[in-house]
């Protein structure tokens, strides 16, 4: 069992963590860095609740060995708001009733951010295709799609995205 002192860059901040190869990124984020916004819901890669952005791309932290995420830029839900100013996607989720129990929400919002960073003018179908790896049991998805489209428009009009 080889322990190593590893560097993680999360939400723009540098962390030094002692890790072992078998540790999952989600557990390092939640247990070692106290970033409990990322959620463990299935552990099989089917629900997307554990999604975080690594170098801007959405990945499943429950199936990622922490050791492979060293020195990469990781964004968790805690890093999205700028101080007290919510990201337009976060605000849109609140405004459009896209949040119910909230357990899928951090993963859903980050996946949506990855979509809008890549495609700022998605259609309804684009949004659905981008979020198909994120399950929600509460909302029926209708208002989630509304919120992402509203956020896209808000960002286009100059909201900070």
């Amino acid at each position: 069992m080889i322990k190593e002192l590893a560097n993680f860059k999360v939400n723009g901040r540098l962390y030094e963590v002692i890790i072992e190869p078998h540790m999952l990124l989600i557990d390092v984020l939640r247990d070692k860095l106290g970033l409990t916004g990322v959620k463990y819901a299935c552990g099989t890669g089917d629900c997307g609740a554990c999604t975080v952005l690594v170098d801007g791309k959405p990945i499943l932290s429950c199936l990622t060995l922490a050791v492979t995420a060293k020195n990469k830029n990781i964004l968790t839900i805690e890093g999205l708001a700028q101080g007290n100013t919510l990201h337009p996607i976060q605000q849109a989720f609140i405004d459009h009733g896209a949040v119910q129990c909230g357990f899928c929400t951090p993963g859903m919002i980050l996946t949506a951010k990855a979509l809008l960073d890549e495609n700022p003018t998605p259609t309804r179908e684009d949004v659905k295709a981008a979020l198909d790896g994120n399950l929600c049991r509460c909302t029926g998805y209708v208002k989630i799609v509304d919120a992402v489209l509203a956020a896209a428009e808000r960002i286009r009009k100059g909201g900070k995205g």
Partner: protein
Amino acid sequence: MYRVLRPFEFFEPTSLDEAIRLLNIYGDRAKVMAGGVDLVLKMRLRQLMPQYVVSLQKLPGLDYIDAGKGAGLRFGALVTLRSIELSPMVQKEWILLYEAIHQISSVQVKTMGTAVGNLCVATPASDIAPALLALAARVKITGADSDRVIPVEHLFVAAGKTILEPHEIITEIVVPSLPTGTGSAFMKLAKTAADIAKVNAAVTVTVADERCKEARMALGSVAPTPIRVTEAEEILQGNKLSGKTIARAAEAAAESVTPITDVRSTAIYRKEMVKVLVKDALEKAVARAKA
């Protein structure tokens, strides 16, 4: 059921030689990791318990997509499904591969997972494998002894098993260019839009002078491995692609398989759906070939 993984030793070799050397030393006690999506899950569930994991992620020169007009498509072992999906060349020239990948629901899984990794997992229900089979793709294997290039269809031995020796890695997938007049189609049935196939089918047909010059057909989820259906291909080859011929080919494809009943579907349904999906796929491929 387990929440955490068992400890193992982790290597991140920076050269292919080093990677193969390690795999040669540790043999069955080691597992290769590219994206890790399948491996990490199986480790958590204790279906795989490697003492050593050899990551390919730091190997240089394996993350490329080369697609030249007429020169075929080559991509390396570290190319993610997402990269292939987003490649304009793939979308244009190898639409079958694009469609097979595009319908995989999770952007996250496509971002993490590699095409090579998908093949190595050798699940009978792979969506990529039938597409690559129908595209006559080949894989380049590098091992301790030598390199070899084999057709994708020779890769699979049994459910979850490839012909790879412990010290061998697939380093590249090569997909030939499709001749003019070729159309293709990918079909799949599943319980929901984000699901593993009950049955999937991939076909390519090359049409010249109203006749089928060449056809390749592959099925997934109806056998322990993805399979090519040569009986159906032979019915098509050289003939006019009429509704009747297509129906006969579809019938032959269904006759050739003995699928199982499992948590996703029944043997009877799968067998019948082979006929329907092959017919639908051929009709679409032919329409595209003529366009």
